[in-house]
């Protein structure tokens, strides 16, 4: 079926560019992460060297933008229309929690919501676009685009696996997504900023540093405490919000349509 009510269907005509660019973007992100972890810089007494900061900033951002350019043309209008809603919710809810004394972020509820409703590509696109647009208000989120894309993609995967039919699985899916997000985002926090964006998360990192851990190890441990809990909560809230939507609206989205057409629904 055509996604446009006025133009012929273009199903099956996904260009080579749309197939290759997301894979290339994912490969750049993975290569950046591996490079940062395998060639982990040694901290001198005077601080960190600068190549990891440039690598984390440029590599993650370039990978996320390649992913976005490949994914966007494939999205149906229902997904394109809901992405700005997800982004606005991320910004409104994230700005509220970001600088409080709670070691959580809650800045990805909108991304998870879009992933659950509109699928993996829309979720990944929302993650990247969220970082790009939010950086107009808070530039520090810009290098975290790759982690945000992973959250959206994994939310879409959870939706595809049936999290919306069994809401009690949502926190489990969120927890696992949080582990991935923590591992991916830790090098950015460590090498680009040398710390975290909140006071409470900073206190956790300082505690691990005082216990003798290196910077990347401390931030990864802090992220592994904060992110799984944060994403478990975000997934649960998003799944409950989807469950509260009228069926008529839910069925406008392709991922929910697919779930509804499965036996047992």
């Amino acid at each position, binding site marked *: 079926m055509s996604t*446009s*009510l*006025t*133009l012929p269907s273009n199903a099956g005509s996904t260009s080579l560019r749309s197939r290759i660019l997301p894979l290339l973007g994912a490969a750049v992100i993975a290569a950046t992460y591996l490079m940062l972890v395998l060639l982990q810089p040694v901290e001198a*007494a*005077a*601080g*960190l*060297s*600068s*190549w990891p*900061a*440039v*690598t984390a900033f*440029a590599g993650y951002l370039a990978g996320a933008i390649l992913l*976005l*350019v490949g994914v*966007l*043309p494939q999205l149906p*209008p*229902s997904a*394109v*229309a*809901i992405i*700005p*809603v997800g*982004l*606005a*919710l991320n*910004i*409104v809810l994230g700005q509220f929690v970001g600088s409080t004394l709670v070691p959580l972020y809650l800045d990805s509820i909108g991304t998870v919501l879009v992933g659950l*409703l509109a699928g993996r590509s829309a979720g990944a696109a929302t993650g990247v*676009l969220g970082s790009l*647009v939010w*950086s*107009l*208000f*808070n*530039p*520090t989120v*810009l290098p975290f685009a790759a982690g945000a894309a992973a959250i959206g993609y994994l939310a879409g995967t959870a939706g595809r696996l049936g999290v919306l039919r069994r809401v009690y699985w949502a926190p489990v899916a969120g927890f696992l997504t949080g582990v991935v997000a923590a591992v991916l985002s830790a090098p950015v926090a460590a090498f*680009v*900023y*040398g*710390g*975290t*964006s909140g*006071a409470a998360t*900073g206190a956790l*990192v*300082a*505690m691990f*540093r*005082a216990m*003798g851990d290196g*910077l990347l190890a401390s931030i990864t441990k802090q992220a592994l405490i904060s992110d799984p809990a944060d994403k478990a909560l975000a997934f649960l*809230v998003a799944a409950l*919000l989807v469950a*509260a939507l009228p069926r008529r609206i839910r069925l*406008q989205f392709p991922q929910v349509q697919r779930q509804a057409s499965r036996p047992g629904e």
Partner: protein
Amino acid sequence: MIRLHPFTGLALAVAAALLTLAADRWWLSLAVTTAAVGLAVLAGTAARLMLTAGAVLAPLWLSQLMVHALFDTAGSEVLVAGGPVRLTLEGLTTAGGLGLRAAAFVSVFLLYSLTVDRIELVRAIDAARVPAQLGYIVAATLALVPATVNRAKAIEQAQAVRGAGEGSGPAGWLRRKRLLAVPLVLSSIQEATERSVQLQLRGFAGGPGRTQLHPVPARSWEKPFGLLVLCLAAAAAVLLASQGGR
């Protein structure tokens, strides 16, 4: 002040951020931050820049201070020691350098964000050879953020008028947030689904043959200048980073 094409300003901001990150020298970070504030004064947005930057940077600086300076175990010149606290000169220097670098990064992007004409930015994205969806999403988000904030306030007021969400403590807070979040999300998604029908009716995203009645003006030198600045910044960043940057 000279009015640049949105992409030229973006190229300058990215180049400045990349160079500051790669060089990692406190005096360069300080110079870039000062230049950004100076340009904001000329543009009449200095107060907003400093307020927004302060709100973004304060928790980050606090975090950097705790991570690098307050509990430093490596530095030799101890300034204050007591219990787990060990404040060293080396730790303070590192935290200060990282804080200045973050300040430069934040101030150049905020300067761009506060001075760019957002409608022109959206039109420039729409005219560029990027998927049409990008222009729509950026435009819709920039319009939706203030609209969502206003809608949230209206919902809060409506709930307060009907006496819902009263109660103190975490349970009362949670109840108030639920009474705010559910109608906010439901109404936003309902609107989005109605908008998607309008997009489909108009054949969005149509194809590459889109034209604009009034394209965003760009001087003939701006595009090559922007590309040159980005290429030079990338080359300098690679060079500086490979030398260690310190």
